């Protein structure tokens, strides 16, 4: 079937007209549920975190976060195990442009700054360790794309950062088991809601998660960019 831009536009316009007719006849509106206010009520009593999603991810469901991080680690581990023998020192992007290189030098600190901001404000505003970690990894991805063979990362450092942060995550959980008898429970002073140093143990967990995620995604992209001649 041949597909052109014109047919996409025509089907778009037709479907928007159908939506308009449906809106007139059926009176659609957003359905609000009651689960959100329930979670917000519990959150106000237990953790002093302004972002309720954060306290769900790291406090109520901390064990599930450990599972997610383990799944990510296993996928990167499988990729590195399968592709280790085929690594080349050359980048597949052979595009050389001095303008791009100079501009990327300016952009890299800005993107890393944005990622760090997202991480350390994870308990105050939308975002958190996973999102900020992927933003930092995308800054490294930009460096890989722009400076083809001038930029390289040592895999030892990436693996060291990843394993240290994972060990730190688990050690934090074990420490809280020893102190208050709950995995990833809060044993630090809570502080006041809405301030930077509040939320107890949540920012620490997010810093560990962000280092782990950024190291993993960076090494994934590095593997994909440098493989050559898979038989």
């Amino acid at each position, binding site marked *: *079937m041949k597909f052109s831009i014109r047919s*996409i536009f025509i089907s778009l316009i037709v*479907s928007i007209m*159908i*939506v308009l007719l449906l809106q007139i006849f059926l009176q659609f509106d957003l359905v609000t549920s009651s689960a959100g206010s329930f979670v917000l009520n519990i959150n106000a009593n237990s953790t002093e975190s302004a972002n309720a999603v954060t306290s769900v991810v790291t406090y109520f469901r901390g064990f599930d976060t450990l599972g997610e991080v383990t799944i990510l680690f296993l996928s990167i581990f499988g990729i590195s195990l399968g592709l280790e023998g085929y690594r080349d020192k050359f980048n597949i992007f052979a595009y050389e442009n001095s303008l791009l290189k100079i501009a990327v030098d300016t952009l890299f600190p800005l993107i890393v700054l944005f990622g760090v901001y997202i991480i350390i404000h994870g308990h105050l505003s939308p975002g958190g360790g996973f999102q900020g970690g*992927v933003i930092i990894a995308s800054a490294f991805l930009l460096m890989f794309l722009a400076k083809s063979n001038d930029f390289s990362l040592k895999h030892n450092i990436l693996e060291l950062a990843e394993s240290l942060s994972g060990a730190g995550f688990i050690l934090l959980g074990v420490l809280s088991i020893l102190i208050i008898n709950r995995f990833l429970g809060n044993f630090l002073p809570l502080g006041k809601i809405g301030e930077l140093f509040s939320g107890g143990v949540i920012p620490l967990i997010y810093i560990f998660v962000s280092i782990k995620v950024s190291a993993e995604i960076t090494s994934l992209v590095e593997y994909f*960019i440098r493989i050559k*001649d898979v038989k």
Partner: protein
Amino acid sequence: MIGLIILAIFITLIVLAIAIIQNDDLPHSVVLFMGFGLGSVILYFLFSAPDVALTEAVIGTGVSGVVFLVTLLQIRSKEIKK
């Protein structure tokens, strides 16, 4: 009014998904996939889930698109070499 915008974005996402599947040109399809990610970012934001919107904006629009393009480039270079 906001329900109208949400329904329009839903329809756009359906059209984009059909276009991604039906396209013959694979890089073109990847670009449409990134557009699909952008539409779902707006949708998540309108459904008041900014955390998920941020994740989708970084992963669905940035990293996965680049990983797809790198894979296509690797396949192309193998085909040219043979």
